[in-house]
């Protein structure tokens, strides 16, 4: 990526929450993601967009070491969080995931009560304060409290898909992470539920740094402050094409391939 495209981001005088440096990810012998440099700005929403197979979810999972769970995945390069490389052998991935939470594509609440869904993560992380307050606060933050306050003891699985996804967001908020990763959080939801999730993402960005992977460009345009566009090179490896403020990337893309993608000519 040419240097001048990084400029407008670093000039914004923002704090960097997490940063990928020369990130390569292999699946076995296959290079899935090639040499990514990406600075994520604190308390902003960063969207990662790109065609299928460009490695955007793979990069997202690298930010909280979820790739460790894929036996064949191998990560090289650095991801710096608070000046520490989270891939340092000394670092416990469990600690990383406590600071960098994740919301998955398909809502996956635990087969427990709504209350327990929110409380469990906090409890295993050693939370010792008032659990009822934490649950209420987290559910309110996730814009779910009013819908579930009378049925906290019901199963999380009894909720609708959109509510389940907000429950998953609430349980992530409850462990008070710095950064929330969202892997296509609305792709399994209907348009109205999607809109609610997007509003939620906007309001959460006041307190959290959010990185969201989406294949929906309107969603990226509506919900994010910064957008990173990934594409696939001739070896089917994903790479970062262009990264910038969302508005300028969508209105004035610097690369032809970005323009082709956002105008729907390919992808």
């Amino acid at each position, binding site marked *: 990526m040419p240097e001048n495209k990084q400029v407008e981001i670093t000039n914004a005088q923002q704090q960097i929450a997490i940063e990928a440096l020369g990130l390569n990810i292999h699946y076995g012998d296959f290079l899935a993601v090639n040499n990514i440099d990406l600075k994520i700005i604190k308390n902003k929403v960063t969207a990662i967009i790109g065609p299928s197979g460009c490695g955007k979810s793979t990069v997202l999972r690298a930010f*909280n070491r*979820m790739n460790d*769970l894929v*036996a064949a995945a191998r990560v090289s390069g650095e991801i710096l969080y608070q000046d520490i490389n989270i891939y340092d052998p000394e670092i416990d991935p*469990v*600690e990383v*995931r*406590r*600071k960098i*939470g*994740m919301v*998955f594509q*398909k809502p*996956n*609440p*635990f*087969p*427990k009560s709504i209350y327990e869904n929110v409380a*469990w*993560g906090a409890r*295993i*992380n050693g939370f010792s304060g008032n659990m009822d307050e934490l649950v209420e606060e987290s559910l309110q933050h996730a814009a779910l409290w009013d819908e579930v306050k009378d049925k906290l003891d019901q*199963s999380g*699985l009894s909720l609708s898909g959109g509510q389940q996804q907000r429950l*998953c967001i609430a*349980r*992530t908020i409850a*462990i008070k992470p710095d950064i929330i990763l969202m892997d296509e959080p609305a792709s399994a939801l209907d348009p109205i539920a999607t809109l609610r999730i997007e509003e939620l993402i906007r309001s959460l960005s006041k307190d959290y740094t959010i990185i969201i992977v989406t294949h929906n460009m309107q969603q990226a345009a509506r919900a994010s402050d910064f957008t990173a566009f990934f594409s696939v090179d001739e070896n089917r490896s994903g790479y970062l094409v262009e990264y910038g403020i969302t508005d300028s990337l969508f209105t004035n893309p610097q690369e032809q391939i970005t323009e082709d993608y956002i105008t729907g000519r390919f992808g």
Partner: protein
Amino acid sequence: MQPQIATRWPLFDSIFHNDLVFQDWEENYSHTYLYFLNWLDLQFITSPQSSDVVRAGVRTAILGSIWTISIAILFAFPIGVGAAIYLEEYAEENTINRIIQTNINNLAGVPSIIYGMLGLTIFVRALEQITSGAMFGYGDPSTANGRTVLSAGLTLGILILPLLIINSQEAIKAVPNSLRFASLGLGATQWQTIWHHVLPGALPGILTGTILSISRAIGETAPMVVVGASTFITVDPDNAFSKFTTLPIQIYQWTARPQEEFRSLAAAAIIVLLFMLLSMNASAVILRNRFSRRK
């Protein structure tokens, strides 16, 4: 004067050809009393073994079966579930683990008499000091040897171990990965994930597998013969170092007797065995349903 048995008629005749029985009695045995005996009654279940067919019961055998099965489960359940967790959640995909997996699958199909010989060699003979209780000052000094409840229980435990492991593995495999990711994504350790999410999700399946294993073990006869179940014993087993018999052994022993009435006794014992099996399976189903409803 002791009452004497003049003659007897088979169960089938007394039920379906009742009139012929009466006719025969009137013609040939009119100087005697005619009784229709019910073999399967409370007295049969609560009495110990006896050489008198009327007084003989299955209490000793039932207790022997319960003792051996309990020891087998106490031994095999933790090891089996632990092995399943290791193989599914921790073990890497490599040659050694593949060999272990293949061996477990093969062991599940080994004839039970082989396990009996293994039990005889290891538990009865090699570990005699432990299994006879001599080391702990227990046991019957006159016949102190390793043919005890403990040896039989451990043999049955090894017999059902592969079944337990395979069933538990299947149950653990059936827990969706999304649940594991959700838990790990919240900063849970791998063990917290297993303990709070994988095991509760797999528990109904593990319980079903355990019950199936118990059903297999409770009916096993061949390894018990080899390990040395007593064929005639009137003393109830009251500790792990007691001599013992089990229901299938008792049934086998009664059918092998020359006197015809012992076969009726065996038939009654078979019904007891079947009842035990079915009621255990039923309680497992109830238990499992309760667990899956709690979700």
